[in-house]
């Protein structure tokens, strides 16, 4: 009898547990599960997770799994996931890295309903003008990505080096490339025939940085590595030759830049091995504060110089956007998550990044983002980078042309003509 009672109790328990478990499973099954991938960038990892948690609290039927990868690894992780048919629902990535997914028609177009809007234009109006294009969310007439972060390059100069060279940090900030070269000459230091400080420098070991400085130089003169529609190269033009000559002359003729002194220009500026560089965004203040506190107080930010007869264009703008894969079964919810991630622009600003969503606190931006007056103003005149799946190859071809001129003594026109032909052949494919 006792044995039967025990068996009965056990059976009841088993059935109860089973029912509870299946009820839980049903609830789980009803819950929408989303996966979002992003790049690690403390303290933003925590900020994004908080925004996702808030979203989940407001939408208990949606569970979002947020996975973080290193910025350099994320593109390959995404490609691997795509190849293995296990792509996440949404992801945040640099605009130029998204091009390959855009050209492969793998990304979903913006869904206004997910933003509580009726049209794409209404969604665009939620962000600052040009934010979608600047951050890489626009492609061939349609919008695919929500701006996550927008930044731009400005020029940086060491004020103490200026004083040392007999220059006035208030009045002698260069406005044209000709002035830039002259100021660079004055700040260049050679000791016993050996270069100890460059007036200026770019990371000549990396195609990306050479191209990033090349884009505005070329655009200011109406040329370009490629045209606006990415259909042909504009390197085989006299304007391109003039822009590239200006760039390569800093090494070959003006001698304000010895590439052997230091390869990383940001590091070189921090270590006072060079006096000016052109590849720093507002975030570089944070880098200096933590890694190069010695130059923090002497650093001055100024708009990219212009050609005296060129267009009024600043350094490149670049950014990160959040995209949704076309393969996602819950695209609407994925867009809602993308919207939620970007919903707290002031929190981004407090941490030093510009999230260009309208309604951000301008005063806070001025207080939290050093030199925002310079960056903000030049951002409106910035040069966007081309969006193409051939981006890496295109900039490598341009880079090869520059290194041929610098290291092999190839004539500027010859190198650029050959580069233009290569790029045109590539774009035809």
């Amino acid at each position, binding site marked *: 009898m006792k044995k039967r009672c025990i068996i009965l109790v056990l059976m009841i328990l088993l059935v109860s547990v089973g029912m509870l478990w299946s009820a839980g499973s049903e609830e789980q099954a009803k819950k929408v599960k989303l996966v979002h991938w992003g790049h690690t960038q403390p303290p933003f990892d925590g900020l994004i997770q908080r925004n996702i948690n808030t979203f989940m609290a407001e939408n208990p039927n949606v569970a979002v799994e947020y996975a973080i990868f290193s910025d350099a690894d994320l593109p390959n992780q995404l490609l691997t996931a795509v190849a293995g048919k296990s792509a996440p629902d949404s992801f945040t990535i640099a605009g130029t890295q998204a091009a390959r997914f855009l050209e492969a028609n793998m990304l979903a177009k913006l869904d206004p309903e997910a933003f509580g809007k009726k049209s794409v234009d209404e969604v665009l109006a939620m962000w600052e003008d040009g934010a979608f294009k600047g951050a890489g969310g626009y492609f061939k007439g349609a919008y695919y990505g929500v701006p996550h972060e927008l930044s731009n390059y400005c020029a940086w100069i060491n004020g103490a080096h200026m004083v040392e060279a007999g220059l006035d940090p208030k009045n002698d900030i260069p406005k044209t490339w000709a002035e830039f070269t002259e100021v660079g000459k004055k700040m260049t230091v050679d000791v016993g025939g*050996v270069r100890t400080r460059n007036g200026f420098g770019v990371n000549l070991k990396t195609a990306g940085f050479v191209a990033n400085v090349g884009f505005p130089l070329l655009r200011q003169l109406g040329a370009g590595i490629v045209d606006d529609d990415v259909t042909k190269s504009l390197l085989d033009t006299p304007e391109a030759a003039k822009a590239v000559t200006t760039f390569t002359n800093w090494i070959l003729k003006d001698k304000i830049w010895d590439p052997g002194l*230091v*390869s990383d220009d940001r590091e070189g500026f921090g270590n006072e091995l060079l006096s000016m560089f052109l590849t720093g965004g507002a975030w570089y203040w944070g880098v200096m504060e933590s890694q190069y506190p010695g130059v923090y107080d002497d650093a001055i930010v100024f708009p990219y110089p212009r050609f005296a007869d060129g267009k009024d264009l600043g350094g490149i703008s670049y950014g990160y956007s959040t995209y949704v894969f076309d393969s996602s079964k819950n695209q609407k919810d994925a867009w809602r998550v993308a919207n939620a991630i970007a919903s707290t622009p002031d929190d981004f600003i407090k941490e030093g990044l510009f999230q260009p969503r309208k309604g951000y606190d301008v005063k806070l931006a001025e207080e939290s983002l050093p030199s925002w007056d310079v960056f903000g103003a030049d951002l409106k005149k910035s040069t966007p980078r081309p969006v193409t799946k051939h981006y*890496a*190859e295109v900039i490598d071809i341009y880079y090869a042309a520059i290194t041929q001129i610098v*290291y092999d003594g190839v004539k500027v026109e010859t190198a650029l003509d050959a580069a233009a032909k290569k790029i045109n052949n590539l774009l035809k494919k």
Partner: protein
Amino acid sequence: MKTKSQSRAGYYFVVPTVILFCVFLIYPMLNSFRLSLYSWNIMEPMQFVAFDNFKTLLQDQEFLSSWGRTLQYTLTSVALLLVISFVFALMLDSRMLKARNMFQAIYFIPVVLVTPAVGVVWKLMFQTTGILNAGIFAPLFGATVPWLESKNVALYSIMMVQLWISAGYYMVMFIAGLQGIPEEYYESAVIDGASWSKRLFAITIPLLKPVFLLVFVTSVLFTFGQFALPYTISQGGPNYSTELLTLFVYRNAFKYLKVGYASTASIFYFLTMIVFSIMQIRLFSDKKR
């Protein structure tokens, strides 16, 4: 005599290794051959292009230069490695040298260092403000060497690091070989009035031939496939002058997503290694005869 169950047990022991070997080596290798017949960027469907990748590759000046450069890098490095590690081994095997073990340990230290870390450190040393230029060349000669800024110098700069990082390893092999030569041979030679150089060329080098061959085989394999050093030191520059075949494959596969094309280049890499292996097998065969 082995029973059937004992034989079966032997197979069971081998099976895990065979499976891992097939999954992680044979399958990727065969798949690479298959991919070389396709155009594929990972995201879009594969397109069968037959032997188009091979035709394009053989007309690709960048590939041909990279392949030739890799051969130059390998053969020069290996020749220098053989000489340097042998000379070090002779020096450190000498009984006249005190604290031999300490010197052996010092020369061996670079072998145990992580190659990318070595690359980063040497990259800093090659800069104008690095120890080589600022500490040696500028004070002594009043000029700096464009270690990584000259197309004519950069490959040799990386080769120098290659020698630094691997000479200790091959030196140990030579020392082991030297210690295996019976002392009586040298004693007899001395009695016969043989000079040091005569003993070196008549006894040491002939008896060390198997070691020379082993060092040649392994150093060719490691040097031809070198990736970490040129990647961390020069990233293939300036103007591709240090882009070895491995970097060419990497650039096409991971930067340009030309997976089929990169696979084709890797087949040429494989074929080159096959040719080297056949040459080496023949050398060994000659030894046996």
